[in-house]
């Protein structure tokens, strides 16, 4: 999936310059069920992070946790 993320980076390059988001840190809260969802997003976003310079922090939640946590966050 890291290669997939790299292969699919062209649309991002149309709108974002290399290193444009350097210094930016974001938190991504999402699901981890059956070791999927957020755990698939990580490799998909590896090339995006390298290109843009942004960093991501992950909050992985189990299926029975995610909805209450989202409601709390809102």
């Amino acid at each position, binding site marked *: *999936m890291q290669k*997939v*993320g790299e*292969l*699919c*980076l062209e*649309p*991002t390059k*149309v*709108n*974002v310059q290399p290193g*444009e*988001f350097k210094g*930016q840190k*974001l938190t*991504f809260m*999402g*699901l981890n*069920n*059956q070791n*999927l*969802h957020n755990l*698939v*997003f990580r490799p*998909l*976003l590896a090339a*995006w992070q390298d290109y*843009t310079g*942004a960093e*991501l922090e992950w909050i992985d939640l*189990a*299926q*029975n*946790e*995610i*909805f*209450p946590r989202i*409601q709390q*966050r809102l």
Partner: protein
Amino acid sequence: MPDWVKQQIDLTDYVGYLQAPVGTWNGKTYRVSIDGDCHNFNYRSDVFAYADLGAQFKADGGSFEWGVPTTWQQVQEVSKWMKGKEFDGQDLYGILDVYKPWGGFGWYFFASRATAYAKHPDDHAWLFDSDTMKPRINNPAFARAAQDIIDVLPAQPPDQINGDGNTTGFTEFLAGTGSMCHWWGDVGSNAYTSSTSVIADKVLFSILPGSDDVYNASTGAWDTLPSGPSYSPNMAYLGWGVYVMNTVDTDPVKQKTAWSVAAHLGGKDISLWLACYPSGFQPYRNSHFNVDEWATLGYSTDVISSYLKSESDSYNHPNAAIEPRIPGIFQY
């Protein structure tokens, strides 16, 4: 959603039921869809094609021709009949129900048992009266679905009452237990790609079973439709999306960063990979329904055609039960 994101991800490619107003509020788009959600019906094609079982079912007074059940009434009948039977040297079970709340997601499995009873083709509403907002969860349709699930428990695998969604879809059905399973599209995409699956080439798909009759909330009566059984696929959860919090709005660079993450994950090309491989996400774009593309990945053409048809027939069904994703939906 900024216009540049809309262009980057091509919103026009979303399947119809995920187009606006889904993901919008007051005319503004807030959601990058990354998933289409419906519960389809996964069934063991080998079980329901086995002539010996069919002969036995008929001899025991089975009320329908042996084959995949098309109504919940048939599902109940055959599941109870299967109790104590064997197939291919293993205990045979019928429908696999989810009994645990699972953080609220157990609701969808109950809803899938209920929509054919509760969603009348002449009524846009099924969860609550749209005029008064009065919940319909205690009406005879939902009560019947609950009773079905209770009644069939003795015919399900041991300890099924402690089973959540992961139990029915992954621990049981993909691993060869049970002959019918309503789940999100993960079962279909995992049947060939998961190392724990033993059902590749033994599974086919359809929309959720219908019902011989459907409850009319306006009249308080059960209607039998002249067209035959009533069907109502459950658009369970409406799919995952990526949402950008408004906390980034005070910083234009951070805002663009966040939307760029969402746009990358919601992009057209990436989405096909997510649909075809185990990811937790299902087809959600019209461009995902090209059978030949799936076949190049090794999927059987017959199986993937069946799978994609079950998804698209669900998404496009005129009587689909759409979930409004209201706060408190899990309390239903």
